């Protein structure tokens, strides 16, 4: 009889091609997602060594990081020269190496981590990699998914494998149910707040518990997306009926007899009773409040009812880091979070750019206007999300409220395209990183859920969305 295994153990075991005596493994990769920023040097490496892409049918490319999100972008003249060269390189590499490709002119184009699940490329039990740390998103399907560097992109292109050592197992359990006004984003930020940005280093996290089971697939993607912000390369959620229902019928999901066979296998993908976890974190769902970040690390998380902390309340190296953060963010220790005024609102990203995120924000904004002088934009995660939001009337709600309604891409999450903050500009963002300069040099980012970002757009300051929803804090 085999020892009880975690979900991570099972997926790992099913992908080991070769194991060396010291435990170094060659792991097979089922899906390789590629975007324009971290791949050009990898394709160049293949050309220089005369190597081919081993499995082009398992390789999917889409430009997202760099592309403008304004109308008329199919005209390359709209792009700054360096971006244009990078997108043109992806066009050429996709064509030359025969990989699946969604160019900007294709309605299915979008953020790589939104396109993968949407098109059914991401399936339970798979290994999924991409030269992007937010590949952890795909873990919501019970797929082992993580970011890799460009050298590893080249390695996967050439061999369809990765050289890996197994990580340790960490369980994050969210018990009970969430309170009204609390979302998947609040779960994932609260976990990072509790464990720190290095709390998951060396681990693969499995998220479980009633509050996780009660999340939709899109909510689960939001949770897993930010596993990397807690230091874990990958976050996983065991697949269930919601997962299977989401996957069924998608363009690249299995059909007919293959579907039945796949389903039978997917139903074995759960952590066995008694399996060992090296680290366990438990948080009560009802204890989670709508949260925001106050500093320049995703671990700088507090309930919206809180106040900017004093640097002296920390220990070790965090004292200086907190002092630096508070200074960079232009805040004062003790200041109420709800007194922080906002200049800009950004709704989008691989964390919160899916249809349910747009619905949640639109529900708050319906019939309302954004604060005078506010800059606000919605950047849907894919062309299909955008089309659906237009069909559901969400786009009109955003436009009527005063938001810009953009085309799909990463946009102001990392500000590689023209969507950037100016020095000192303060943004309520639904993205994943509040690092110094992340959204533009000197820009100040507060991370939060789409509903909270919408609330801030209306009031002009960080706001407890529960007040606008008429629910108790």
């Amino acid at each position: 009889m085999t020892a009880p295994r975690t979900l991570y153990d099972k997926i790992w075991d099913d992908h080991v091609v070769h194991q060396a005596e010291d435990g170094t493994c060659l792991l097979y990769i089922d899906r390789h997602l590629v975007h324009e920023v971290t791949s050009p040097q990898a394709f160049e490496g293949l050309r220089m060594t005369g190597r081919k892409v081993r499995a082009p049918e398992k390789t999917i490319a889409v430009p997202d990081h760099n592309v403008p999100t304004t109308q008329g972008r199919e005209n390359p003249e709209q792009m700054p020269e360096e971006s244009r060269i990078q997108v043109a390189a992806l066009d050429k590499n996709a064509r030359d190496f025969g990989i699946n490709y969604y160019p900007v002119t294709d309605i299915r184009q979008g953020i790589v981590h939104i396109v993968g699940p949407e098109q059914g490329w991401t399936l339970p039990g798979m290994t999924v990699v991409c030269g992007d740390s937010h590949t952890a998103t795909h873990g919501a399907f019970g797929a082992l998914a993580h970011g890799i560097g460009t050298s590893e992109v080249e390695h996967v292109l050439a061999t369809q494998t990765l050289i890996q050592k197994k990580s340790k197992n960490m369980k994050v359990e969210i018990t009970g149910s969430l309170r009204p006004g609390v979302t998947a984003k609040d779960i994932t930020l609260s976990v990072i707040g509790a464990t720190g940005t290095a709390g998951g280093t060396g681990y693969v996290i499995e998220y479980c518990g009633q509050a996780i089971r009660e999340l939709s697939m899109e909510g689960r993607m939001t949770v897993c997306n930010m596993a990397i912000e807690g230091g874990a390369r990958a976050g996983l959620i065991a697949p269930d009926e919601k997962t299977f229902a989401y996957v069924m019928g998608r363009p690249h999901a299995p059909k007919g007899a293959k579907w039945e066979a796949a389903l039978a296998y997917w139903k074995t993908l759960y952590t066995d009773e008694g399996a060992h976890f090296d680290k366990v974190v438990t948080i009560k769902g009802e204890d989670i409040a709508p949260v925001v970040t106050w500093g320049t690390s995703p671990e700088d998380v507090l309930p919206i009812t809180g106040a900017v902390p004093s640097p002296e309340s920390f220990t070790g190296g965090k004292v200086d880091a907190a002092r630096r953060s508070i200074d960079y963010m232009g805040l004062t220790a003790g200041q109420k979070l709800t007194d922080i005024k906002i200049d800009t609102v950004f709704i989008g990203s691989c964390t919160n750019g899916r249809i349910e995120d747009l619905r949640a924000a639109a529900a708050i904004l319906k019939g309302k206007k954004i604060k005078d002088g506010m800059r606000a934009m919605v950047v849907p995660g894919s062309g299909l999300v955008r089309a659906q939001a237009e069909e559901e009337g969400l786009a009109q709600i955003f436009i009527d409220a005063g938001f810009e309604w953009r085309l799909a891409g990463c946009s102001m999450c990392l500000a590689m395209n023209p969507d950037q903050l100016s020095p000192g500009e303060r943004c309520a963002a639904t993205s994943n990183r509040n690092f110094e300069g992340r959204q533009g040099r000197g820009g100040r980012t507060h991370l939060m859920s789409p509903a909270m970002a919408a609330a801030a757009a209306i009031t002009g300051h960080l706001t407890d969305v529960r007040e606008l929803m008429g629910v108790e804090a």
Partner: protein
Amino acid sequence: MDKFTTLTGIAAPMPLVNIDTDMIIPKQFLKTIQRSGLGKNLFDEMRYTQDGKEIPDFVLNQPAYRQSQIIVAGDNFGCGSSREHAPWALLDFGIRCVISTSFADIFYNNCFKNGILPVVLPPEAVAHLMDDARKGANARITVDLEAQTVTASDGKVFAFEVDAFKKHCLLNGLDDIGLTLEKAAAIDAFEAKNASLHPWA
């Protein structure tokens, strides 16, 4: 990839915790399609003013540290984005070794692919080396990968752990794609088996 065997060089102290890859190389420099030339923009927003002037206080702008080959850093160095532009920028500047109490996983891996040795040491050891690094250009730290030791300028020796395979590749400057392709038969066999077990994959 250049081999890494031993290195004796100036170490720059960067005690800040959670130095992320956005700080190491901001996104506006990721538009290159090459690996080289990023050194001048290493730590760009900490190193230069908005109009491109050097900020004198920043450690790598100080005369003693302009030739640094080692960084002694605060906890969780390299967190955030997977961009390999971070180690490319470090390498292009001349940094061959980073010493810290911990590194983010993806950055840690990326270093080994580029001839950079990330060394993890306990807090007391990093504190000792940080003090050493603060002495300026006269404090030369020696890193010996074969022996797995770091020697401070006062002769104090700290032993570190490193994965045997990663060490082997770095000592010999090996291209791991070449090594993996030697196992092509195993990959073929896996694909054949997988096609019958998991035909949808």
